[in-house]
């Protein structure tokens, strides 16, 4: 017996659009069964995780808070993914972005002015791009696999955060706890932009999603990126150099991750501590794939994943499932969506018997 995947000649647009929904439904069904088998109220757990955050308006700001950084980072990653430049180090670039903002904050803590916050954000963006730069350089100069180099730098970034927050950047008035001094009002973003309780990062994410969409679909830059990814040899003939694509996509994804990081700290928390790394950089990779490398898809995927986080916490108080629940559901969702994605593009053929038997038949 052989299992083969054949490319479908025609891609059904309906299937392409519906398959993620199908995958989420599968996740809900399988998830409910698994939890019921383990002794919890399976159907209610699913309800709390997926529906409560959507149907309860007071939960929307929480979903937005989680979705904004995911979308921002994933947008940056998508550009790279299209060029087949795999940036796995977004988590590290996210941390550097936060550190960049924190550094400026510490320097300006006794100053006032509307220029402080933009400076912090610029510093965060630059720091994120800076952390991505070695990865691009190593790949262009030495052919080093960017998956591995960017991943390694994540752990270096974690140690850097650790060191700064427990040492030189520790709040002198913080009772010796490992955290930076809280940001002054000049250093924080408004919480109620446009009168809505959503973090400013959300609006930035939406705006940038639109921008990325335009750039990727209509600009020469976007075209170049895609050509480099899909047909590297043709790209070279057409004058698009892979090394340029590597630089630009890595720097942009680093910058986006850095932006997410600095926005996260200037929004509500207003300081950095050891609990800051939350895995957004890795989850954003998943968001990028769930969104099928398309900016609008990423917005949706980011929201879906945020819902699962928020729902997971709700489910803890109401159905008393353990906190590992959210992770399980996310993993299941990813498995089903990846599977459905493949099955939409390719047809699964199971051949029984030997090749000669099939030929005879």
């Amino acid at each position, binding site marked *: 017996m052989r*299992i*083969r*995947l*054949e*490319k479908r000649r025609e891609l059904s647009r309906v299937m392409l659009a519906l398959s993620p929904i199908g995958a989420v439904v599968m996740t809900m069904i399988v998830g409910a069964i698994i939890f019921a088998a*383990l002794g919890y109220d399976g159907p209610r757990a699913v309800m709390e995780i997926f529906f409560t955050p959507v149907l309860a308006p007071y939960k929307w700001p929480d979903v937005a808070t989680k979705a904004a950084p995911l979308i921002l980072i994933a947008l940056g990653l998508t550009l790279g993914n299209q060029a087949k430049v*795999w940036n*796995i180090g977004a988590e590290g670039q996210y941390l550097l972005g936060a550190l960049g903002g924190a550094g400026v904050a510490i320097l300006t803590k006794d100053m006032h002015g509307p220029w402080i916050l933009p400076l912090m954000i610029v510093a965060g963006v630059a720091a994120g791009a800076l952390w991505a730069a*070695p990865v691009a350089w*190593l790949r262009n100069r*030495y*052919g*080093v*696999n960017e*998956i*591995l*180099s960017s*991943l*390694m*730098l994540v*752990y*270096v970034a*974690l*140690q*850097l955060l*650790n*060191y700064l927050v*427990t*040492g030189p950047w520790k709040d002198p008035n913080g009772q010796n706890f490992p955290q930076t001094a809280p940001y002054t009002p000049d250093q924080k973003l408004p919480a109620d932009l446009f009168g809505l309780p959503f973090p400013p990062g959300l609006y930035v994410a939406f705006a940038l999603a639109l921008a990325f969409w335009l750039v990727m679909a209509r600009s020469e830059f976007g075209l170049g990126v895609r050509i480099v990814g899909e047909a590297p040899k043709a790209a070279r003939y057409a004058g698009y150099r892979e090394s340029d694509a590597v630089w630009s996509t890595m720097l942009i994804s680093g910058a986006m991750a850095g932006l997410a990081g600095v926005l996260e700290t200037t929004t509500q928390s207003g300081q950095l501590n050891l609990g800051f790394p939350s895995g957004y950089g*890795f989850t954003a*990779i*998943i968001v990028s*794939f769930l969104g099928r490398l398309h900016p609008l898809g990423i917005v949706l995927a980011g929201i879906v994943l945020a819902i699962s986080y928020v729902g997971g916490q709700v489910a803890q108080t109401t159905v008393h499932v*353990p*906190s*590992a*629940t*959210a*992770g*399980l559901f*996310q*993993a*299941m969702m*990813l*498995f089903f969506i*990846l*599977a459905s*994605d*493949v*099955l939409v593009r*390719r047809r699964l*053929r199971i051949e029984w018997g030997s090749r000669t038997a099939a030929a005879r038949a």
Partner: protein
Amino acid sequence: MGFSHGGGKGMSLDLIIAALLTVVNITTPILLAATGELVVEKSGVLNLGVEGMMLCGAIAGFAVAFSCSDPDVADTWLGLAGPWLGVVAAAAAGAASSLLFGFMALTLGANQVASGLALVIFGTGISSLIGTSFVGIAIQPFDSVFPESLAEHPIGRVLFGYSPIVYFAFFMVAAVGWFLNKTRAGLVLRAVGENDLSAHSIGYSVIGVRYMSVMFGGAMAGIAGAYFSMVITPLWAERMTAGRGWIALALVVFSGWRAGRLLGGAYFFGLFMTLELYAKASGFSFLPSQFWAAMPYLMAVIVLAVMSARNKGGSQSPACLGKPFIPDA
């Protein structure tokens, strides 16, 4: 009974041997997981899910070993074989969890990075879920099976003082090295990793070979996880592997995908981490501890660059690493 003072020379020998045992403890799980991942990557697959598979193995091994130590069965053969069964269960759990990744990445050709990350999340979640009923329980550590009398003599301690899993790890590194370089099957595996299309055209089943290597990697990661829950700290706690899976990934890179260097690299890391502890305990800290903690990863990046530079533009990673293989029908 306490620590006995020897003469000056005797005490330092004791100290060195004791420190060596700590080094072995720190290194073994990383070595096991890295050896497995080495094979996986040599066949052209990048499985980032090591941490998740280790945790699955840790809880499976602990659960089985604990069940076998239950007073009702402790006197039967089950009780005696308990720890060994635990290791087998851990390998099975690791391999089973790797199949999830295998199905996604190999059969369906989905992106390996995303699939691997999903495996980490899944493994962490499912082990935590299953493990909730095993918290606060202690079992006997799966220690050396050699007679206690051997431990009296320093040489005896160095050679015979370890859990069977340690010897297994040494054996496997050697076996993997021999397999990859000296057997035909190993050659096929490497070919699949370097040029999958050619291998396919010769008639080898690329997907089949990769499934086997992925499962092998899973089994090794599972046993590595069991080392945590059955040897180092015979208990279960959520996320108890604390990121060692990622160090194993770094180690594979650091080793340049060569088994011999893997062994050396693993022990280098282990020695490093142990020395850091000794320095702290003795009051030395000339560089912040985070610097030392970041070293393995920094060094991996440097090694990557150096290796690739020597190869004049090409890196030494298996050429097909991370690329899905989908033969056009």
